[in-house]
């Protein structure tokens, strides 16, 4: 039908920043990423879950830095050992009213994908450790499969602090 042809014709490109967590590739929409930098010195915060690496000074702003591999237990045992040696990068991501740092081990790369390449999440993905409510979709680019995350949902204060023991009162 001519109508359906018309609807599929404009296929906007979506700019993603792609990074690795464990063995998989993940992507975030580029507008959610403020900058990528070598991970600055991080001060560990007591009383936070272990995937919250701590706080760091990013050009005078104090930001919280999290490790999503640890959050979703995506790191292979062999990699855990070499973790200390490798230097890492931090993506500064703009959440609703604050900036947060996400540590990755390889330089994140930009990638443009057509909107149509992003598919809704199939149910089987729930087997993965990342709960599907953070997943915006799955992008297929050639033989690559990129999980597109909705960072704003992932980085709400309640999500970040969910493993924290209630503070003593």
């Amino acid at each position, binding site marked *: 039908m001519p109508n359906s042809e018309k609807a599929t014709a404009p296929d906007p490109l979506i700019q993603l920043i792609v990074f690795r967590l464990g063995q998989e590739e993940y992507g975030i929409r580029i507008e959610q990423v403020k900058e990528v930098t070598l991970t600055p*010195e991080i*001060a*560990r*915060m*007591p*009383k*936070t879950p272990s995937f*919250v690496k701590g*706080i*760091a*000074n990013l050009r*005078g*702003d*104090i*930001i*919280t830095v999290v490790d999503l591999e640890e959050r979703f237990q995506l790191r292979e045992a062999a990699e855990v050992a070499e973790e200390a040696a490798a230097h890492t990068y931090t993506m500064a991501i703009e959440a609703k*009213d*604050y*900036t*947060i740092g996400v540590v990755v081990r390889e330089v994140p790369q930009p990638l443009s994908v057509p909107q149509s390449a992003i598919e809704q999440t199939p149910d089987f993905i729930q087997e993965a450790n990342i709960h599907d409510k953070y997943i915006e979709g799955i992008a297929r680019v050639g033989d690559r499969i990129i999980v597109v995350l909705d960072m704003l949902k992932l*980085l*709400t*204060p309640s999500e*970040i*602090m969910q493993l*924290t*023991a209630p*503070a*003593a*009162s």
Partner: protein
Amino acid sequence: MSNREQEYRELFMAEALEYYDAMSRHISELERNPADEEALRELFRLMHNLKSNARAMGYTSIGEAAHHMETVFGQLRDGQATFTGSMVPVLFGGIDTLGELIRAVGEEQALPDVQRLLDNLDRISRGEEPDLEGEEADDDEDVSRKLELSDLVYIQVRKLDHLMNLMGELIIDRDRILTLSREIDHPALTTAAAHFSRIAEELQYSVMDARLVGVGSLFSKFPRVVRDVASTEGKEVNLTLQGEDIQIDRNILQIITDALLHLVRNAIGHGLETAAEREAAGKPAQGQITLSAQAERDDVLVQVQDDGRGIDVASVRRKAVERGLVTRAAAAQLPDAAVRAFLFEPGFSMAKEVTEISGRGVGLDVVKLAIDSLGGQLRVDSVLGEGTTFTLVLPTSIAVKGALLFELDERSYALPLMHTDSVVSLLPDRFSVVGGVLLTRLQGENVPVVSLRELLQLEGDQVLAPARKATLHGRQDIIIVNYNNRRLGLIVDRFLRQQDIVVKAMSKPLDTIDLFGGVTLLGSGQVCLVLDVPALTRLFLAKRP
């Protein structure tokens, strides 16, 4: 002339000149449209305000002139007369005269005679013709003198806050640059960095100074409050204000406003007895409340003092046991000061009846929270039957705090000096273990001591493991902190130094962790956590073995 008089005069001048400008504007509008009600209302209001201000300052002639002008504008406003004919030059002249009078105050000259103007205004208000002879003569002179700018500017606190934040960033960068210049050790750089540092420091104090206001600007609202509360409570109260010219950051004053209001209402409602009770106790029927401020080193002490019935320590002790805040045995041993500190526990109120004024379920805990948020201290002293004194120890400035820097697990931490009692370095034989808690004796008092590392590493519902002396090796560096009359020793790895720090609020989403009052950046660029002593003390009390 004292500083305070000088300041009041400057404030009067600023306001009066502003009134004068507004009057000139409105009377011109009135000339275009004699029935402009808005302009008439404004003129009446401006005259009224100027009159009150001038009379309060003792400038009788300004007060009289404004009073007579007000009368005429009142008649115009109420439609008893219209703005036409011979009254127009008289009223224009009257505003010019007010301007001259105000300028004369500003230049500390004798105020010109205004009798002629007053007589003319009286004639107008009686509906008679004014005497206009010679009125036009000095007009030329007026034209050249009319344009006058005030020496004061009004500025929104928001803008000052922004300046202060920028200042904080600058101070952090200054420390960074000083550290770098020491590392690089180049003579030209060292000189430039030293100069930069001096300027930054001066700028910092100027910005802090620009934010200071007299405590009197808050105190002056209390006579009215006291009058209203006293009449509702049916009590006779005399309020004395002291130290109104003590200077403090405007935002600090803002934050303590409710706390002070609460303390004063409490003092009248619960502190002071009724006239009959007072006389029966051999006191004058009229109760005394004193609101005072004094500077003490870098702090400002604000006190609310009453000569009422005082705090019944035995009754507080009993109530603390009832509420399960302390065991009966422990309560019996607590010193009076520690017992009075229970008054600041959430929901702990001594009021037996809820009154309209001070019993709205808000207790001293709210006052305590406000003071804590400023990094201040709240103390209470009381003698049964003689009265109660609440003391607020407040920092002069919000942004810069004195802090003690120390090291724990190779990281730097800061503790605000406001809550630091002392630092001691003790050998293991100075400790004893009682009920699983380390104790040491300092100045005749047993102070509990805890390893800060263990306290910070507790997870979830874990409680502290019972302390054992065997785990202590060598000298222990201990910071004694003080919160709400409770002293607590924190074992740290190493003292570093004392330093003024700029505390940045903890950013989201970690701002829910109350153990840290914020962060600061050290000269090295390192992030340094600032511990919150109230939260740390509460954590220790909740987790002790």
